[in-house]
C-alpha cells in the first residue's frame, strides 16, 4: 500500500479495502485502529451491563426492593459487578482502546509490532468474557465470593467459582499479550528521530503499564490456577487442614491486583497528559518528571500489595513497612497532579468538553488518592477496613479517575477516530447530572463507611438509611448523565457533522493525519525533530 500515488488520498481505515467486507472484515482485521474499535464496542457493552448491576445493587439498599432480590442474588450481583467492571472494563480499558488505536500513530508507526497477536488478544478477551458470562448460568450458579475470590470461601462455595476464575485467567492472557506487543512496539517501531524523550506522555504511560501487565499478571494467573486445582483435586496449598495457608492466597492475589490498580490508572494519567497541553496551548510542565513518575509508580506500586491485608494478620513490622511504602507511592501521583495544574497556569485555555472531563478527573482523582493515603495509615485502616469507605474510595479512583479519563480521552480522540464531531452542548448537559450524582453516590458511601456501614451487606441498620437513600438517588443521576453522554456520542457516529483533521489544535502526530486516519496512518513515515508539545503560540511569546 505504501506505493500508492500521492495524488489520490488514501481511503480511511473504516472503508473495507481488502478481499473481505462487512463484519467478517472487522473480525479478521489486523489493523490496530479497527482492533481498538472492537475493544471499544465490546467494553462499552460490558460497562453498561456493569452499570446496570450497580444500579440494581443500589436499589436493593432501598429496602422495598428486597422482595425482588434475595440475599444470595445480592452476593452474586456484587461479585459479577466487580468481575465485569475490573476485568472487562477498567483493567483493559484505556490501553486496549486508545493504546491500540493511538500508540502506533503517536510514535509514527504504521501498526503495532505483532498485528496478528493483537487480534488474538482481542479474541482472548472475548473468550474470557464469554466464559465469565457462562459462569453466571452454569454449574452451581453465579459466584458469590466477591471479585477477589478469597480462599477459603472460594474453595468451599458451591457456586461456579471455577469457571469465573478460569475466565479471569484467560483475560489475563489477553492483557499480557497486549503488554508484550506494546513494549516491543515502543522499542522497535518509533519513527526516525522519535527519541525516548520525544515521545508523547501517553506512550510513557502505556510503556510503564505494559511492564506491570507483564510482571504482575502471571502471578494472578497462577493464583487463580491454584484455586481451580484446589477445587478439583484438593492440592491443599490454601487449605489449613492440609497444611496450607489461606493468607498465602491473599498475598499472591494482591501481588497482582494491587499493581493492577496502576494498570488501570497509569494510561488514564497518560491521556490526561495529552489533553491538558492541547487545551492550555502550551507544552506540558515537567515532561520528564511525569515520564519518570509513571515508571516509579510502576516500580513502587509493586511493593505495596499488603496494604489490602492490614487486618488479615501479619507481623507488626510488615504492617509498618507496607504502610510506609503505601504513602511513598502517593508521591509520584502527586508529582503528576502538580505538573498538570502547572501546565494550566498561564496557559491560553480553550475550554472544550475533553478539558472539562480532564479537570473532573483531576478533582475526583485527588479525592480518591487522598482517601487512599488515609487508608495507608494503620490506625485509620483498622476502623474503615471492609466498610463502605473503601467502596467509595476505590470508586473515586477507578470511576472518578480511570472512568472520567476514559471519557475525556473518548471526547478528545472521538473526532479523530470517527471523523465526526459530537454535540458539545449535549456533552456539557450530561456532565452536570454525572458529576453531581457521582459525588452523592460515592461521597455518600464514604460517609456511610465512616459511620460504620460494612461493605457487601444485604441489609443495613436504620441509622444508615438516610445516607443510603441519598447515595441511591445519586446513582440515578449518574446513570442519567451516562446515558446522555453515550447517546450523544452514538448519535454523532451516525449523524455527526464531519470533523476537521485537527479540531482542537493539537500538535502531536495524530493531528497531522486525516480524520479518520487512512489505513496505514502515514503516507510517509514522519521524521521527528523536536519534543511532543510544541505550540507556535508559545514560540512567539
Amino acid at each position, binding site marked *: 500500500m505504501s506505493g500508492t500515488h500521492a495524488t489520490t488520498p488514501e481511503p480511511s481505515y473504516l472503508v473495507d479495502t481488502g478481499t473481505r467486507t462487512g463484519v467478517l472484515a472487522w473480525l479478521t482485521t*489486523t489493523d490496530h485502529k479497527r482492533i481498538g474499535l472492537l475493544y471499544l464496542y465490546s467494553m462499552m457493552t460490558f460497562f453498561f451491563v456493569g452499570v446496570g448491576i450497580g444500579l440494581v445493587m443500589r436499589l436493593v439498599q432501598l429496602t422495598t426492593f428486597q422482595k425482588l432480590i434475595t440475599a444470595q442474588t445480592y452476593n452474586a450481583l456484587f461479585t459479577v459487578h466487580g468481575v465485569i467492571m475490573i476485568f472487562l472494563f477498567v483493567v483493559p480499558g484505556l490501553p486496549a482502546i486508545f493504546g491500540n488505536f493511538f500508540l502506533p500513530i503517536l510514535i509514527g508507526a504504521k501498526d503495532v509490532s*505483532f498485528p496478528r497477536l493483537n487480534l488474538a488478544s482481542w479474541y482472548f478477551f472475548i473468550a474470557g468474557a464469554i466464559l465469565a458470562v457462562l459462569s453466571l448460568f452454569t454449574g452451581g450458579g453465579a459466584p458469590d465470593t466477591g471479585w477477589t475470590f478469597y480462599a477459603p470461601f472460594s474453595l468451599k462455595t458451591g457456586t461456579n467459582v471455577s469457571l469465573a476464575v478460569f475466565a479471569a485467567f484467560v483475560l489475563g492472557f489477553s492483557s499480557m499479550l497486549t503488554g508484550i506487543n506494546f513494549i516491543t512496539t515502543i*522499542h522497535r*517501531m518509533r519513527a526516525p528521530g522519535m527519541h525516548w524523550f520525544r515521545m508523547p506522555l501517553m506512550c510513557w504511560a502505556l510503556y510503564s503499564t505494559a511492564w506491570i501487565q507483564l510482571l504482575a499478571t502471571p502471578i494472578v494467573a497462577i493464583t487463580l490456577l491454584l484455586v481451580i486445582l484446589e477445587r478439583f483435586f484438593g492440592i491443599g496449598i490454601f487449605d489449613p487442614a492440609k*497444611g*496450607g495457608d489461606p493468607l498465602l492466597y491473599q498475598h499472591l492475589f494482591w501481588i497482582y491486583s494491587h499493581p493492577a490498580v496502576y494498570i488501570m490508572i497509569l494510561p488514564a494519567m497518560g491521556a490526561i497528559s495529552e489533553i491538558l497541553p492541547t487545551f492550555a496551548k502550551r507544552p506540558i510542565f515537567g515532561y520528564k518528571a511525569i515520564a519518570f513518575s509513571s515508571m516509579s509508580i510502576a516500580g513502587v506500586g509493586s511493593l505495596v500489595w499488603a496494604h489490602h491485608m492490614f487486618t488479615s494478620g501479619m507481623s507488626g513490622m510488615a504492617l509498618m513497612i507496607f504502610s510506609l511504602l503505601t504513602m511513598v507511592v502517593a508521591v509520584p501521583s502527586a508529582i503528576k497532579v502538580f505538573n498538570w495544574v502547572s501546565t494550566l497556569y498561564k496557559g491560553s485555555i480553550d475550554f472544550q468538553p475533553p478539558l472539562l472531563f480532564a479537570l473532573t478527573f483531576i478533582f475526583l482523582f485527588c479525592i480518591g488518592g487522598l482517601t487512599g493515603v488515609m487508608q495507608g495509615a494503620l490506625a485509620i485502616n483498622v476502623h474503615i477496613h471492609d466498610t463502605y469507605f473503601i467502596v467509595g474510595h476505590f470508586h473515586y479512583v477507578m470511576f472518578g479517575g480511570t472512568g472520567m479519563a476514559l471519557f475525556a480521552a473518548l471526547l478528545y480522540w472521538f473526532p479523530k477516530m470517527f471523523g465526526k464531531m459530537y454535540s458539545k452542548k449535549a456533552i456539557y448537559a450530561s456532565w452536570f447530572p454525572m458529576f453531581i450524582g457521582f459525588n452523592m453516590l460515592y461521597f455518600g458511601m464514604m460517609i456511610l463507611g465512616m459511620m460504620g456501614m460494612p461493605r457487601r451487606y444485604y441489609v443495613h441498620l436504620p441509622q444508615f438509611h438516610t445516607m443510603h437513600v441519598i447515595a441511591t438517588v445519586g446513582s440515578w443521576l449518574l446513570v442519567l448523565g451516562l446515558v446522555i453522554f453515550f447517546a450523544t456520542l452514538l448519535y454523532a457516529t451516525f449523524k455527526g457533522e464531519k470533523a476537521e483533521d485537527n479540531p482542537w489544535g493539537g500538535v502531536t502526530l495524530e493531528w497531522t493525519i486525516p480524520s479518520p486516519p487512512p489505513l496505514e496512518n502515514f503516507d510517509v513515515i514522519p521524521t521527528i525533530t523536536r519534543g511532543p508539545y510544541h505550540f507556535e503560540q508559545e514560540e512567539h511569546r
Partner: protein
Amino acid sequence: MSGHVHRDDLGSRLGMWLFLVTEMVLFGGLFIGYSYMRYRYPAEFHHGGMELNATLGVINTLVLLTSSLTVVLSIVAVQRGEKQRAMALLGTTLGLGLTFLVIKGFEWSAKFHHGLYPNSAHLATLPPGEQVFFGLYFTMTGLHGVHVIAGLSVLSVMLWWVATDRIRQDRYIHLENSGLYWHLVDVIWIFLLPLFYLAA
C-alpha cells in the same frame, strides 16, 4: 495489511523474551508458595523429598539438557543450510522430550500406586507439611509437564516448517524463538530438581 510486509527479527526475539519473562513470573508465584511452605515445614519437606526417586530426576535432567543442545544444533544446521541435519536434530529433540514425559509418567504412576496424590486417603494420614509438599510437587511438575507438551507441539510445527522450507537459511526466527521457549522449559526443570528431588 495487504501488500505491506513488515519483518523485524530483533523485534520478534524481544517479544519472545518478554513472553519468557511472563512464564518465569508464572512459575515465580509457585516458587514463592514453595519457599514459604518449606520455611514452615522443613522436616516434612525433607521426608517428602525422600519419597521421590532422585536417580530418575537426574536422568530426566540429563535428557532435557541434551534436548536443549540438539535444538541449538538444529538452529545452527538451518543457518548453514543443512536441512536434513536440522530435521534429524529436531526429531531427536522431540524424541528426548517424549522420553522425559514417559519417565515422568512412570514416576507419577508410582506415586499414585503408593497413594501419594492430593486428596488420597493415605496422604490424609501424613502430617500437614507433607500433604502440602505433594500438593506442590504435583502442581509444579504438572505445570512443567504441560509446558513440555506445549514445547513439543511447537517444535513439531517447526519440524514441519523446516521440511516445507518455511524455515530456511535466511529466515529462521521462528525456530530460534521456539528454541528459546524450549530452553525455558529446561531451565525451570533445573530449578524443580533440587527443590523436590534433592530436598531430602
